[in-house]
């Protein structure tokens, strides 16, 4: 974007939207939108509170465990599907169904199955992340150069060696791409899980703010979450660009 001939830095348009928010907030149009300045002030006070830090810690825990399980289960499953016809035919329809399914609708079922707590949230997170990780690992294995597979076999690679020394590395760019999208989905999963279950983490916090009409707090926490999700996605995109340099050279 340029203004009066000057190039403005990347996110300058946010300033305009921020100003608009401030004006609407100051005009007192609706209690739902307090002025941005008030929200920002609240943000800094909220971040220090125990309630917020507890919510953040719980969310981070659910997120990390959920993502790790999605990765640890998803990658081997995807590689197996890429290598084994039978496994592929058995699993692929399910993976595709779950990939496009509105998983939010499953959360109530998960609550019934796994209780109204951390466990259900972790599983929700995993379910959001895992399918794309499986599909990408599968695609990565499928594109492996046939002669690389022959090479490993002809030099006597055991199946375990072939997995860790050839398949995993050859499929790495696709696998990492899958992990990146999976993590972005997991951010959604962990928040949606918490909101629906609303007993732990930010779900509980939102519940508290909404019940007490603390709109400034509500927006402040929302901004923090958006910023966190955006930062995670940008970091992953950066890492992936570095890997795709190598992928292009394969």
């Amino acid at each position, binding site marked *: 974007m340029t203004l009066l001939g000057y190039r403005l830095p990347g996110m300058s348009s946010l300033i305009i939207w921020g100003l608009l928010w401030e004006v609407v907030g100051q005009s007192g149009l609706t209690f739902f939108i307090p002025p941005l300045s008030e929200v920002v002030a609240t943000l800094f006070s909220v971040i220090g509170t125990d309630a917020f830090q507890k919510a953040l810690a719980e969310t981070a825990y659910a997120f990390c465990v959920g993502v790790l399980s999605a990765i640890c289960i998803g990658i081997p499953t995807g590689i197996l599907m890429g290598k084994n016809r039978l496994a592929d035919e058995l699993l692929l329809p399910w993976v595709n169904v779950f990939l496009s399914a509105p998983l939010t609708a499953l959360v109530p079922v998960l609550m019934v199955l796994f209780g109204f707590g951390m466990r259900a949230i972790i599983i929700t997170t995993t379910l959001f992340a895992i399918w794309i990780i499986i599909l990408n690992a599968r695609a990565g294995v499928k594109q492996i150069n046939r002669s690389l597979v022959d090479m490993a076999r002809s030099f*006597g690679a055991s199946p375990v060696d072939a997995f860790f020394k050839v398949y995993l590395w050859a499929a*790495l760019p696709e696998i990492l791409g899958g992990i990146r999208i999976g993590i972005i989905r997991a951010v959604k999963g962990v928040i949606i899980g918490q909101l629906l279950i609303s007993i732990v983490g930010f779900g509980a916090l939102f519940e508290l703010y909404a019940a007490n009409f603390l709109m400034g707090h509500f927006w402040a926490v929302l901004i923090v979450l958006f910023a966190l999700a955006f930062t995670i996605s940008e970091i992953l995109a950066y890492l992936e660009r570095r890997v795709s340099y*190598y992928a292009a050279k394969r």
Partner: protein
Amino acid sequence: MPQTSAAETSAVAEGDTTFEIAVSTRNISKNFGDVEALNDLSLEFPLGQLTSLLGPSGCGKTTLLKIIAGLLEPTSGEVEVNGQKVTGPGPDRAFVFQDFALLPWASVIRNVAFGLELRGVARSEREAVAESYIKQVGLAGFEHAYPHELSGGMRQRVGLARALAVDAEVLLMDEPFSAVDEQTRRKFQEDLLGLVQDQKKTFIFVTHSIEEAVYVSDQVAILLPRPSRVSEIIRPSSFRGKGVDNIRRDSEYLDIVDEIWASLRRYVE
């Protein structure tokens, strides 16, 4: 080794010379669904010599080589290496791939040592072996380069060093020079002659180039298109000792090239 005695018994007499046979394929047939790639193909590969499989593309050369490597199972027939029946890949055979098949994420030295790595040889030991073969194929100084930093010819040298490093008795080479430029290819062909002389190994060399086959081979097996069988075996005799520079001008060399072309031309539209 018990298999050597078995190998000695299966020797062929050719004129007044007798060769010990390192690899023999007996009545190999291979079908891919409806496609009959090889039909009842029998061929013997003398120990310590280079045998070319020459034929037009699609005639089953790669298929035969992979069957010998144990990477493919024949539909019927069997392969023996040193008198032992082949049931799968084994340490007595090493493969050089047409498209090099290098690990793109591994350095030259790790690629060359990869066969030894898979055999569980300790790192320092296998890297010492790899280093000496890297030197031998003329890549000294590139040990820590990555495949994408090398030219096609250099990559194939890595593939060759990897195959040499496992010290297999039989080297299977699938059109190893077809993806490198003409000058490099000529240099490779000369080097290959030296290699066959130095190493006491049996080379099975697939090519679709008549000149290349005649230039490098002790024995050329001409395969005809599908279903493939051996139509002719030619053993160039007189020019092998005349030095790499003189072969391409030798009259026997030129005659054999012409003769092979005459028998293959009717299969080329």
